[in-house]
């Protein structure tokens, strides 16, 4: 609190003052001022408490201390103020989430983000100003909230989510993710689902379940969902709803370009490595992007293809997804609303997925996203795979990457404990490399189980039973 500007009061000061001024301040209804707030809901019984909903998490017990004049400082007494919540991502959703949590009395927050502030964030990431461009998103956002809302204690971490281990994630009551990419969401989901401990019957220990509230947006559309690991469906259960990005066929790019996008792909996929074999394209460098644009424009001119612009070049190379303040607000608010309910039980839980589509009127759809029966992350099911007898270890790796599991760099050991292939450390990789070209059938029996690990699902292992045709 030492760093707070003097004119702003700390939360504790506010509590003291209200205690002194007594209980029955008049509410002035005439000027639209002095509204009741969340504390009113927390202190009054409801026929629609959490326990009466479709996805009950806990029983709502109204706080009893409340007198007539409910003010924000009373939120200090609520279960919300005692919770510790993690916000993953301090971007478009993250800025909104931090504000929403602050104004919901959830004061103990950690926020984690790898990115620095870019000028194109400023149309929606409202905790950042022009002077902040280039600085850490997590740090600037945390500082802004702590200053504006003196009762808040936001702790930033500028780094990757993978820098933190399971014990870090286990220390929160709830995790909200406002991530913009599939891979990070898969990693977070797997890590948090992996925290759940099962008893001898395979039932989850409730005290090890940490809910994730996940949001995402694209243009005017977005979604918010609840993941109660092992109880409701998880992110991995719905992976097929997020298809991998498709790219243009190489022969089209190289030989028969037709659209401006083909010329841009030619420039950055084929020509850049040819021209600069030792330099990786820096998508954030104006010079590099200018080169790609000019190269694409030249090719387009040669083939009489119209429409290559710098803006389109940026869009294709960086795979830019349009983003606006309004949609971030909608999705983040829906996520925060769920966090408030998950922590206080003051109302019912979203079951379990809400979609918002805003372009043609508003289409809103709330539905149960079903669990995937053999989810590699949140079920204890064995993945069954039938392959030909001649399939090599390398072939299996390719299949695990391109198939439904969508792994990135799998390592595997057999049930018998022998190592089939390990991606790292380098010494082990080198030692197991000769196995890559061997047929799998020379290493394991048909029907044998493999334990597969992969960086995208770092803290869980997937059991794959391989049967030969």
């Amino acid at each position, binding site marked *: 609190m030492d760093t707070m500007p003097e004119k*702003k*009061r700390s939360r504790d000061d506010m509590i003291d003052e209200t205690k002194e001024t007594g209980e029955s301040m008049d509410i002035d*209804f005439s*000027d*639209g*001022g*002095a*509204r*009741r*707030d*969340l504390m*009113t*809901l927390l202190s*009054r*019984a*409801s*026929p*629609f408490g959490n326990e009466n*909903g*479709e996805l009950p998490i806990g029983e709502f017990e109204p706080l009893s201390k409340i007198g*007539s004049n409910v003010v924000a400082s009373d939120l200090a007494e609520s279960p919300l103020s005692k919770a510790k919540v993690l916000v993953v991502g301090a971007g478009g959703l993250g800025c*909104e989430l931090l504000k*929403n949590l602050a*104004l*919901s*009395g959830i004061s103990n927050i950690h926020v984690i983000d790898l990115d620095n502030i870019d*000028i*194109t964030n*400023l149309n*929606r990431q*409202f905790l950042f*100003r022009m002077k902040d461009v280039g600085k850490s998103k997590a740090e600037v956002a945390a500082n802004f909230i702590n200053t*504006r809302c003196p009762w808040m204690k936001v702790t930033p971490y500028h780094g990757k989510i993978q820098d933190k281990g399971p014990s870090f994630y286990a220390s929160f009551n709830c995790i909200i993710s406002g991530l913009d990419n599939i891979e990070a969401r898969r990693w977070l989901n797997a890590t948090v689902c992996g925290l759940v401990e099962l008893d001898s019957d395979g039932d989850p220990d409730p005290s090890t379940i940490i809910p994730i509230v996940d949001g995402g947006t694209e243009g*005017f559309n977005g979604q918010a969902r609840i993941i109660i690991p092992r109880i409701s469906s998880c992110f991995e259960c719905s992976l097929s709803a997020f298809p991998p990005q498709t790219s243009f066929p190489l022969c089209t790019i190289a030989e028969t370009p*037709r659209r401006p996008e083909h010329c841009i792909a030619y420039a950055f996929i084929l020509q850049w490595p040819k021209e600069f074999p030792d330099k990786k394209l820096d998508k954030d460098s104006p010079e590099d*992007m200018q080169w790609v644009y000019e190269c694409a424009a030249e090719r387009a001119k040669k*083939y009489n293809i119209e429409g290559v612009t*710098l*803006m389109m070049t*940026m869009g294709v190379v960086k795979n*830019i997804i*349009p983003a*606006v*303040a*309004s*949609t971030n*607000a*909608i999705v983040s*608010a829906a996520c925060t*609303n769920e966090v408030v309910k998950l922590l206080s039980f003051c*109302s019912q*839980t*979203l079951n379990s997925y*809400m979609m918002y589509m*805003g*372009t*043609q*009127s*508003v289409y*809103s759809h709330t539905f149960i996203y079903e669990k995937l029966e053999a989810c590699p992350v949140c079920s204890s099911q064995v993945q069954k795979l039938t392959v030909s007898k001649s399939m090599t270890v390398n072939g299996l790796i390719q299949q695990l990457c391109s198939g439904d599991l969508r792994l990135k760099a799998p390592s595997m050991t057999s049930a018998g404990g022998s190592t089939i292939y390990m991606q790292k450390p380098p010494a082990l990789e080198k030692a197991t490399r000769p196995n890559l070209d061997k047929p799998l059938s020379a290493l394991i029996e048909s029907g044998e189980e493999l334990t597969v690990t992969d960086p995208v699902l770092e803290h869980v292992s997937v059991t794959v039973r391989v049967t030969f045709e």
Partner: protein
Amino acid sequence: MSTNKYDRQLRLWGAKGQKALGETTLVLFRATAVGTESAKNLVLPGIGHVLVVDDAASAQKEYSSNFFLVNQDKNRAQLSWELLQELNPDVQGSFLHVAEGLSTACAKPEWWTNLWQTVKTPKILVIASDLEPGILQMVGQACAAKGVPVISVQAYGMLGICRLQTPPLPLMDPKPANTTPDLRLVRPFPGLQNLADGILWDELKSHEHSHVPYPLILAKVAKEWKSSHGGALPKTHAEKQEFRDAIKAASRDIGKEVNFEEAMKNAYTAYTERSLDLDHLASLRDSVDGLVATQPSLKTFGDLLHALDKFLKEHDNQPPLHGAIPDMTASTEGYVTLQNAYRDQAKADLAEMRQYLSSGDVSEEDLSTFCHNVHLLELYQTRTLVDEMAAKVTEELQEDWMMATMDPYEVPAMTPFLWYLGFRACQVFHQEHSRYPGVLDAWEEDVSLLQECVVKVVTSLGLQENDLVKSTLLAADPPKFAQELARYGQAEIHSISSLIGGVASQEAVKIITGQYVPLNNTYVYNGIVSVAAVYQC
């Protein structure tokens, strides 16, 4: 390099939309959280001006649920504008503290005249935040008279409501997620037919053969089909099968020629024409003609509709060509040539449309946007807030509501429409008691009074015999809806305010830019279980 801070939104609404945004003043009635959140999402993308109109002398008790208030001794209009302003230096703005109170001020015609005079931009949009029913009616009336769109936003406990009232708006740029390309294969234009006729199958090398764009394959096969079928295209299922067989027969190896595969897949475009709904266009013309005298902003739309009518008469009801084609298997040259043929025809159609316009004021951009969307043109009209609050019921509305109650949410009591009725009951309670239910400590005493209002609202809308309404809202033992609504005591829950602020600002952008399709006319968010829906109210 993209040094443009608006890059991510320009990809949605373009420079034209951005310009419209910059030419608009947002007039915010009351800076409650739902209002400042709505304003935030319009200041960030660069709305031109903001004018905050408020009558709250102090905001000291509210900064816990409103991000644009802090603990300072200033009136709410000033304080909120000062904090909103920090979001974007491009946005101009001011504030108006209404010391006499909005309920007094809004009743005076001269107050409104003065207010409108302070706005300097060509366009105005009003956001009315958490207004009590009496003031909301006055604001709705004044905005309707001025032809200004107003978005009423309410954060009421776990309920959120966003209600649009606008003057009639032309929708000519709806940007649907999926569009079907207009290939004109049923009645090919000369440029297209010439290209198809120029192809001689036997003279093509195998590489060329497998790169003939599929529209040309279809145009060729269709021409041959017509010449052997007395000028008719395939009609029956069997004929359509035969037609596909003819495509297959034209291929040298259907398994290897992807372009022929594409032709098979799109065979229907050769014999199915997307017809224009002429009755719809005629009724649009009639509506616009009837309104244009009082709504001069509809002039361009009316002019375009009449030009389209002339064009259709000249062209046997074929509209101007869009001109865009999808990507397809083709050589570069073949594709570019085909694309140019479509583009040239589209340009010629556009030039012809221009001749039919009675006014020279229509911009090239408006003309081409209109022509690109001839199948999707609409006139957007909303019911007035005054009619809603007077419980004026029409047959159309009752049908809508019937549909809404016949398709309840999985847990019927959570259907947002029921909660809309509950909110209306709270408004009626306010009209009768000059305060919302549950704002006093003895909140439970309001439950039975509120339940009386529920019955009144339901009856006034003719819904008292509706099964869903009967089994939920009207169930009196215990009256769960009234209990829950009294519990809220009009509490301002930030997540609800923020969500509705998001919806309102998204709708505001649609109205201001004339792009996409605004909701008609009420979005109801049930925050108890996060279920939402749109109703005509």
